[in-house]
C-alpha cells in the first residue's frame, strides 16, 4: 500500500506543478489530503506490518501519522485562503512542494532503517526550503539560505553518526542499519562509539526537532514561511525529529550509555527551555514568539525523555496536543496578518475589536499552550514534573518551573497586548480584511480537542502511545 501511496503522491505533485490550472491543482491537493487520511487509516488497521522492507506501521509512527492526517486538511484549507487574493504561478509550486513535504514526512515516520530515514529527512529539507522561499522576499531568501545551510550541516553530522552506528553494527556482525538490528547489536559493541554516534545523530536531527543546539533553523523558517507551512513545520516536522531521535534512543536504551543519553537529553531540554524563555521575553515578532514556544515544548519533551518513567508517555502526549494547539495558533496568525497587515508586535493591537473570533482563538490557544487546566497539555506537563520529582531531579525541576514562569509571563503579556491594547506603532492599514468566523472553525475544533483530551483519552490513543514507548528497553 505504501508504494501506491508514494506513486499517487508523486503523480499528484507533478499534476499540481505541470497542469497549470488552479482548479486542477486544488483538486490534486484535496485528493492528496484524502489519500493521506486513507493511508493513515490503513496504517492504523495494519499495525506492525512491514512494507517494501523499509517501512513498518509501528504504533509510534502511526499515532503521529494520524495527527498529521488531521492537521493537513486544515493546512490545505488555510493555504487556499492564503492564496485568495494572490494571482501567482507560485500557487502550483507551493502545492506540489506541500505534497512532497507531507509524503517525505510520512515516509520518515514509518521508516525502520536509519539510512532510509536520513534520505527522507533530506527530502523534507528540500521541499520545506521551496515552501519557505515561497514569498521570494529578502527575508524569505535569508531564512531559506539559513535553513538549507544549517540543515545540510545537521544532516552531515547525522550521516557521521550513522557511519559510526554502521561501523558498530559491522563489529557486532550485523550488516543492515534497521532500528531492530541496532537494538540487537548495540549491547555487543564499545559504548564509546555508541556515545559518539548518538551525539552526532542528536545534533543532526535537532534541526528538525527544533531543539537546542540547532534550534535556530526552525525559528527563522517559521517566522517567514506562509502560516499554513509554519503550522506544519512546527508540528509535523518537529514530531518527525522527535520520532527519529526517540527510535535511536530506544535502540540504544539497553546499552550502558542509557543514563548518559538521559543526561544529554536533560541538558539539551533545559537549555532549550532557557533559550526559549529568554528570547520570548525579547520577541517583537508574533510568529517568532510562537516559534520559540515550539522550542520550549520540544525542550520539555527532551526533559521528559531524559527523566524516563511517566516521562515517555508524557512526551508523546505533549507532542500530540502541541501539534493541535500550535497549528491552530499558526493558522490564526495567518488570519491576524490579513486583519492587521503586520506581524510586528508593536504594530499589533485591538484584535478583539477587529476580529473577536480570532482573538478568542489566541486567548484559548495561549491557555492551552501554557498548560493551564483544562488544557490537555496540563496533563502531560503534570506527568513530566511528577516524573522529575519521583526521580529526585530537584535541580531540573526548579529551573524548569522558573523558566516556565518566564514563558507564561512573556506569552500572556504579548497575547493580551495583541487582543486588547492599542498598537504602539501605527501602520497604515485603511481597509483591514473582513474574515468570516467560519474560517476559524478549524482552530476552535483543534483547541476543543486538546481540552477534551484533558478529561478523556480514547483507549485507542492510549494504547498506541503505550505500545509506541514500549520499545524502550528500560521502560
Amino acid at each position, binding site marked *: 500500500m505504501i508504494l501506491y501511496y508514494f506513486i499517487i503522491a508523486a503523480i499528484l505533485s507533478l499534476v499540481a506543478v505541470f497542469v497549470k490550472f488552479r482548479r486542477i491543482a486544488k483538486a490534486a491537493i484535496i485528493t492528496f489530503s484524502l489519500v493521506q487520511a486513507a493511508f493513515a487509516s490503513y496504517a492504523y488497521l495494519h499495525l506492525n506490518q512491514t512494507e517494501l522492507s523499509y517501512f513498518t506501521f509501528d504504533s509510534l509512527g502511526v499515532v503521529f501519522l494520524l495527527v498529521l492526517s488531521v492537521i493537513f486538511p486544515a493546512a490545505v484549507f488555510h493555504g487556499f485562503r492564503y492564496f485568495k487574493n494572490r494571482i501567482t504561478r507560485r500557487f502550483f509550486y507551493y502545492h506540489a512542494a506541500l505534497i512532497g513535504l507531507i509524503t517525505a514526512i510520512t515516509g520518515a515516520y514509518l521508516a525502520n532503517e536509519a539510512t532510509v530515514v536520513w534520505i527522507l529527512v*533530506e527530502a523534507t529539507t528540500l521541499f520545506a526550503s521551496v515552501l519557505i522561499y515561497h514569498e521570494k522576499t529578502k527575508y524569505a531568501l535569508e531564512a531559506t539560505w539559513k535553513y538549507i545551510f544549517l540543515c545540510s550541516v545537521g544532516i552531515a553530522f547525522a550521516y*557521521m553518526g550513522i557511519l559510526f552506528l554502521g561501523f558498530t553494527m559491522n563489529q557486532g556482525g550485523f550488516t543492515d542499519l534497521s532500528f531492530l538490528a541496532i537494538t540487537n547489536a548495540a549491547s555487543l559493541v564499545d559504548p564509546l562509539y555508541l556515545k*559518539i554516534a548518538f551525539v552526532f545523530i542528536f545534533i543532526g536531527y535537532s534541526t528538525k526537532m527544533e531543539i537546542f543546539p540547532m534550534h535556530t533553523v526552525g525559528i527563522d523558517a517559521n517566522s517567514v514561511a506562509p502560516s499554513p507551512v509554519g503550522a506544519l513545520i512546527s508540528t509535523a516536522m518537529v514530531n518527525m525529529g522527535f520520532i527519529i531521535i526517540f527510535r535511536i534512543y530506544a535502540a540504544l536504551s539497553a546499552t550502558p550509555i542509557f543514563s548518559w543519553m538521559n543526561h544529554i537529553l536533560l541538558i539539551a531540554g533545559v537549555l532549550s527551555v532557557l533559550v526559549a524563555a529568554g528570547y520570548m521575553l525579547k520577541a517583537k515578532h508574533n510568529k517568532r514568539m510562537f516559534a520559540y514556544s515550539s522550542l520550549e515544548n520540544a525542550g520539555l519533551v527532551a526533559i521528559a525523555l531524559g527523566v524516563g518513567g511517566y516521562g515517555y508517555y508524557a512526551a508523546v502526549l505533549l507532542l500530540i496536543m502541541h501539534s493541535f494547539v500550535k497549528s491552530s495558533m499558526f493558522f490564526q496568525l495567518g488570519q491576524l496578518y490579513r486583519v492587521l497587515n503586520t506581524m510586528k508586535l508593536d504594530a499589533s493591537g485591538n484584535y478583539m475589536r477587529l476580529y473577536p473570533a480570532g482573538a478568542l482563538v489566541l486567548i484559548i490557544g495561549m491557555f492551552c499552550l501554557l498548560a493551564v487546566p483544562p488544557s490537555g497539555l496540563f496533563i502531560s506537563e503534570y506527568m513530566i514534573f511528577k516524573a522529575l520529582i519521583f526521580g529526585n531531579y530537584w535541580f531540573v525541576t526548579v529551573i524548569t518551573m522558573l523558566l516556565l514562569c518566564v514563558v507564561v509571563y512573556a506569552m500572556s503579556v504579548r497575547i493580551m497586548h495583541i487582543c486588547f491594547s492599542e498598537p504602539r506603532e501605527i501602520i497604515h492599514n485603511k481597509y483591514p480584511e473582513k474574515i468570516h468566523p467560519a474560517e476559524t472553525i478549524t482552530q476552535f475544533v483543534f483547541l476543543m480537542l486538546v481540552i477534551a483530551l484533558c478529561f478523556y483519552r480514547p483507549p485507542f490513543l492510549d494504547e498506541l502511545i503505550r505500545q509506541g514507548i514500549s520499545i524502550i528497553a528500560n521502560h
Partner: protein
Amino acid sequence: MLNFLIILFAISLIYLSVSERFRTYAKLIAAQGILLMGIALFELKEVNTASLIFILAETLIFKTIVVPYLLYSIINRTGVYKVHNKSLLGFYSLILALLALVLSIVMANALENPKIDTVYLTIALFTLFIGVLLVVNHKLIFSHMIGFLVIENAVFMFSMSVGSEMTMLINIGILLDIFVSVLIISILINRIGSKFNKLEADNLNSLKN
C-alpha cells in the same frame, strides 16, 4: 603513496585555514577533490567496480571540476576576492588550526580500534574542525560555503575511515554531497548575490526578534 596523499590533504587544510583569497579557496577545493580521488582509488580496492567508478567520477568531475568552476563564477560575478577584513588574522587561524590538529590526534587515538583507520579518523576530525572554523570565524557567506564544502570532505574521509564495507552508505553520502552542494551554490549565485551586497553574512541578519 596513500600516506603521502593524506599528508598533502592535511597540508591543504592548514593552507585553507590561513588563506585570505577566494581564488585560493577555489583552487584548494579543487586540489582536495583530486587528493580525495587518489585516496579513494588506493583505499577502496575491495568495492565493486561500479561503486568505485561512481566514487571516482564524483571526486573528479564534481569535487575537482564542477564545484571549483561554480566557485570561480561566484567570485567573478560578485567581484569579491578576499575574506572580510574583520575576519580572524591568518596567524591566529594557523594557531587554531594547529590546536584542532592536536585535538584530532588525541580524539582519534582515544577512539583506537582495529577496524577504524586512525590516520583517516584523525584527518576526518581535523577536516571537520577546519570546516567549522571557516564557518564560525568568517564574515562572508562565500567562506561559509567553503566551510560547508570542507565539512562534506570530512564526511567523505569519515567514510574512508570505516573502510570499504559500507559502500551503500558512502554512495548515499556522495549523492547528498552533490545534490546539496549544487543547490546551495546555485542559491548563492542566483539569488543571494543579487539581493545582498557583497555576500556579507552580516547582511543576512535581518531576521530578528
